[in-house]
């Protein structure tokens, strides 16, 4: 990690790994056995990961689903989906979740982009301490801050307000977003901007029309990262929101089905599928546009 590799690390997330490694190797019986072994072990691990996941899919389409993994077969029906797709159970929590998630991700993205630009482009004596503070706060356990945040929200009268929750959720996403965004921005060569500056463009115009269009793979990585984190976030809305009609999907799934008495497991599974779908779709959409290889390994190393 020297300075000269700054641009390559920022570009790393879009490159497909390990093509060169699998170059011309002698193909003897030993490598064949090794290959078969690797395939088998990988597949076995894959199956172990798949089995718990299958339950939710099978149970969702099974009218009388239990906790056991079983093929719906003759019990196949969409009754579970019909039962949960009501305003109180699905539509409102999903809408609330969407409002929370989209607004906080949008705020985090805009604020992080604005902050990353001067950090990437200019040298001031405050830059290093600021970046170190940002890096430090990416490591703080947000869970631990929830008790003091609740205390603070009580005193500011922000408990059970959407705006307060959105602002806090956006803030928790900020440190890592700024950090990743700055690294991706470092990968955009400055020469193009200097041309735009000479033509009289302001730095904000340059950011919008020159820099951002050149770093959309980086932007999508940060967006996926932020959005998935917010959509799945349980603890923040669980603590900060109280009224049932404001709760997002992540919390209402828990309050609707949380008491393990006579749970309708099929309905819970159907609801889980509906709640999981948006992030999976977003992930597929963006990772496909990134060439199928979504890693942020390069950005992680700085």
């Amino acid at each position, binding site marked *: 990690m020297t*300075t000269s590799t*700054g*641009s390559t690390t920022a570009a790393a997330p879009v490159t497909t*790994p*390990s093509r060169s*490694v*699998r170059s011309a190797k002698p193909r003897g019986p030993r490598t064949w056995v*090794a290959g078969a072994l690797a*395939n088998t072990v*990988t597949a076995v*691990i*894959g199956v172990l*990961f*798949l089995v*718990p*996941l299958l*339950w*939710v899919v099978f149970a969702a389409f099974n009218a009388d689903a239990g*906790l*056991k*993994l079983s093929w719906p077969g003759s019990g196949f029906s969409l009754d579970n989906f019909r039962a949960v797709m009501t305003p109180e159970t699905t539509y409102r929590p999903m809408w609330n979740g969407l409002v929370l998630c989209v607004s906080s991700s949008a705020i985090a993205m805009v604020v992080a982009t*604005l902050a990353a630009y001067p950090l990437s*482009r*200019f*040298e001031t004596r405050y830059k*290093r301490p600021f970046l*170190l503070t940002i890096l*430090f706060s990416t*490591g703080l*356990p947000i*869970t*631990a801050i929830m*008790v*003091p*945040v*609740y*205390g603070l929200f*009580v005193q500011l009268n922000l408990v059970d307000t959407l705006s307060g929750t959105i602002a*806090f959720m*956006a803030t928790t996403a*900020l*440190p890592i977003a*700024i950090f990743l965004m700055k690294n991706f921005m*470092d990968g*955009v060569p400055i020469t193009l901007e200097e041309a735009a500056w000479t033509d009289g463009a302001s730095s*904000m115009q340059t950011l919008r029309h020159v820099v951002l269009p050149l770093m959309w793979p980086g932007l999508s990585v940060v967006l996926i990262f932020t959005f998935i984190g917010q*959509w*799945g976030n*349980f603890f923040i809305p669980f*603590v900060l929101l109280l009224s049932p009609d404001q709760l997002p999907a*992540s919390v209402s*799934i828990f309050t609707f089905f949380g008491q393990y008495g006579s749970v309708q497991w099929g309905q819970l599974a159907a609801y*889980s599928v509906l*709640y999981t779908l948006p*992030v999976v779709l977003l992930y597929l959409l963006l990772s496909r546009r990134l060439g199928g290889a979504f*890693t942020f*390994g*390069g950005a*992680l*190393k700085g």
Partner: protein
Amino acid sequence: MATITRPSPGAPAGGELRRRTHPVRVDIARALPLTPAVLLLLVFLAGPILWCVYAAFTNIALTGAGSGDTQFVGLANFREAFSSKDFANSVVLTLVFTVLSAVVGQNLLGLALALLQKRAAPVVRALVGATVIGAWVIPEVVAGYLWYAFLAQDGTLNEIIGGLGLSQNWLYTLPIVAVSLANVWRGTAFSMLVYNAALSEIPAEIEEAAEMDGATGWGRLRHVTIPMIRRTVTTNLMLITLQTLSVFGLIYTMTKGGPGTKSQTLPLYMYEQAFSFSQIGYGTAIALVLLVVGAVFSLVYMRLLREDG
């Protein structure tokens, strides 16, 4: 962390010179886009942390008997915590959970998957990669329910091993192992992606040279591959440890910390004390302990990144 310790590659050359020549108002204008970020971070991150440091030394309660009558109690909250059996229990459980699920589980399984994927056929690699990442993308509450269903008395695991006579409700008999397993399942994708990236940067010639010299698979792994990705290993360990320290939703949906307090890690203990028992002062003291542990890990992590340069 070269980008922090040295001028970033994208920055204009001769920044030193420009700093001295341009007037202060240019500095201010350039720092202007930072204001929203600074404001949000001050109000919603630095604010709560400072409040935490204050409240941990008081008997503050937001509702009930003690509210409105907040007093400084010195180290009483910490003395109470360090002499409490439940606190000690949750510290031990947090350690077990972190070592079992992050340091051993996610880390080793992620590395193994990354190594195996290099040798596996493209189809196997793509399918298994997608499944593992799928487990990572789904929300943690859903993951909690999935694993509840998998491990419960009449769940899938007992169905599979039914013939062996080992059938039991794993969430009652081995709660901390059960939640650790679920966390391995959910978090391995992160380590896998990190190691995938690191392994792809090892030049092919080095491994081929080792192979020519007759190094066995294990020898190559121990003496060539691992030393070359050593820094990635430490970085990854720090990051997944920090993530695992703050896991709440997964454990809460699976066991609520129970049975009794048998899977009550620090975040769940803190939640119970602060919100179920309304002891905000005591809860913030525990939060402060968690924050300090997180801060130490975070500092070590920054240190490692800097040496990277």
